């Protein structure tokens, strides 16, 4: 009785299986290499382009009713900025605080809190989504950012709006900052909020002024904003990736 253990077909199958295993292993090694992170990061542009196409008619983020609000709105990141300057602002109830608007604008401005409150106001009850996964619903009142930018008169090459903040998240980390592009800057719900849940903005939530950019995650909503700089690109700000957490690996586009 003859029994061929190794036929041509079984050899071919063995070869094919070995090849697949080899490609799989090489692929896994390649995916563990640092350079692969760059490949993974390409997904951000796919997401940005897809969502910008879906949001091209600038729909609003959902607004809720007062009964939907979180009983306790979690404070995250910096809850009390360090440094003497911020303590002085607290001591004088932000009367010496000013918001500077500069960069690629024809009309740089310096606004007090009273100046901001004289502008048109918008109030919205929206959901805040942290990149960590939790959500809280709160009520925000402030000045539409687009209204301020119109008064500042953007230069033709203006593309991004950078928010400089008063807080360091970590010791020696450098100041918090964030950036949005003009698509989100001029959205009606993008406001510079000075009030939360019908009170002056609490320190833990960014007093005296924070950004609300409702169709993106929480880390985009810069707290303790002190300066708005209009730029053509953000490569020369911070470590060049458009924000404090972006410099630490997070996506610039935080719509997901």
């Amino acid at each position, binding site marked *: 009785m003859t029994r061929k253990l190794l036929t041509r077909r079984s050899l071919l199958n063995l070869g094919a299986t070995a090849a697949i295993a080899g490609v799989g292993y090489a692929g896994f090694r390649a995916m563990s290499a640092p350079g692969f992170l760059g490949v993974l*990061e390409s*997904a951000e542009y796919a997401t940005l382009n897809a*969502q910008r196409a*879906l949001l091209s008619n600038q729909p609003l*983020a959902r607004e809720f009713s007062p009964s939907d609000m979180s*009983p306790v709105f979690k404070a995250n990141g910096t809850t009390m900025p360090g440094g003497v300057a911020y303590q002085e602002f607290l001591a004088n109830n932000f009367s010496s605080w000013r918001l500077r608007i500069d960069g690629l604008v024809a009309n740089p401005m310096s606004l007090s809190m009273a100046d901001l409150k004289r502008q048109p106001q918008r109030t919205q009850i929206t959901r805040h989504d942290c*990149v960590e*996964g939790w959500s809280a619903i709160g009520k925000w009142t402030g000045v539409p950012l687009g209204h301020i930018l119109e008064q500042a008169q953007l230069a033709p090459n203006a593309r991004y709006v950078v928010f400089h903040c008063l807080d360091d998240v970590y010791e020696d980390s450098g100041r918090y900052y964030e950036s949005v592009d003009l698509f989100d800057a001029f959205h009606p719900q993008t406001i510079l909020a000075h009030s939360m849940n019908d009170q002056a903005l609490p320190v833990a939530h960014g007093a005296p002024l924070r950004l609300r950019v*409702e169709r993106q995650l929480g880390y985009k909503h810069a707290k303790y904003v002190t300066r708005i700089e209009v730029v053509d690109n953000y490569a020369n700000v911070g470590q060049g990736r458009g924000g404090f957490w972006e410099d630490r*690996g997070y996506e610039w586009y935080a719509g997901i």
Partner: protein
Amino acid sequence: MTEIASPDTGSRSQAPREIIYRHRVVTRLTHWVNALCFTLLLMSGLQILNAHPALYWGQFGADDDHAFIEFFAARPDGRDGKLAGFTRIGPLTIETTGLFGVSNDSDGDVRVIAMPGWATIPANRDLATGRRWHFFFAWLFVINGLVYVAGSLINGHLRRDLLPERRELSPRHILHDIWNHVRLKLPKGDEAKRYNVLQKGAYLGVGVLLILMVMTGLTMSPGMNASAPWMLDLFGGRQSARTIHFLAASATVAFIVVHLAMVLLAGPINEIRSMITGRFVVPPEDKS
């Protein structure tokens, strides 16, 4: 599933081996891409869960709100202050030290973390990188899924192989099939050339779970919420969607455990080969 001629008869003492072409190329290719994507999505998803290992129901949910499921660490009384890990599901709390809540890292050091390092990508705590993996493979997963669905509609895989026939849906038939599975009596001969009704149900069911995960994943995106607010209503809020996302992933893991067990029982080499080359040796009928 086209039958092909089988000249390969092995030895004279055996009955001729019947080989069929069981899986078409679209099925085979998308199966393995799907397996890769799901594994990486699961592991990066557990990394993301570690950033806030509590799951809520409704529109919002954070530290001060009631969590439906949570993974946490505590120092129970009478254990010399040693840390222990716990998992709470509704009113039920069970100790899960070593797996959930508290586990050892690759150096053997105890660490407080919901999901153990061996189950996450990257193994250390790194939400930013976990998200990069998750969204890259989410795109690949969706594209691959669309190829599979389109291919299965065009080549008839869905209609011919997956949708149960009327006679298969009779309680008697289903009970008989369950009984066969309980006895681990796997189909042979002609019966093995097609999916049985439990198999059809499992594959269609996991398809629904995968679609559910994509939809609940999108419902967690604030950008998508503005574009498609109806999804928030469908799932009852962003935090409900997040919980469903987790439960659907857990159910898919349960499917995979059973799926792999069935592959082992049915003959792993024949089954895996049929998903690589498409060729499947039909198990001969029992001679009795």
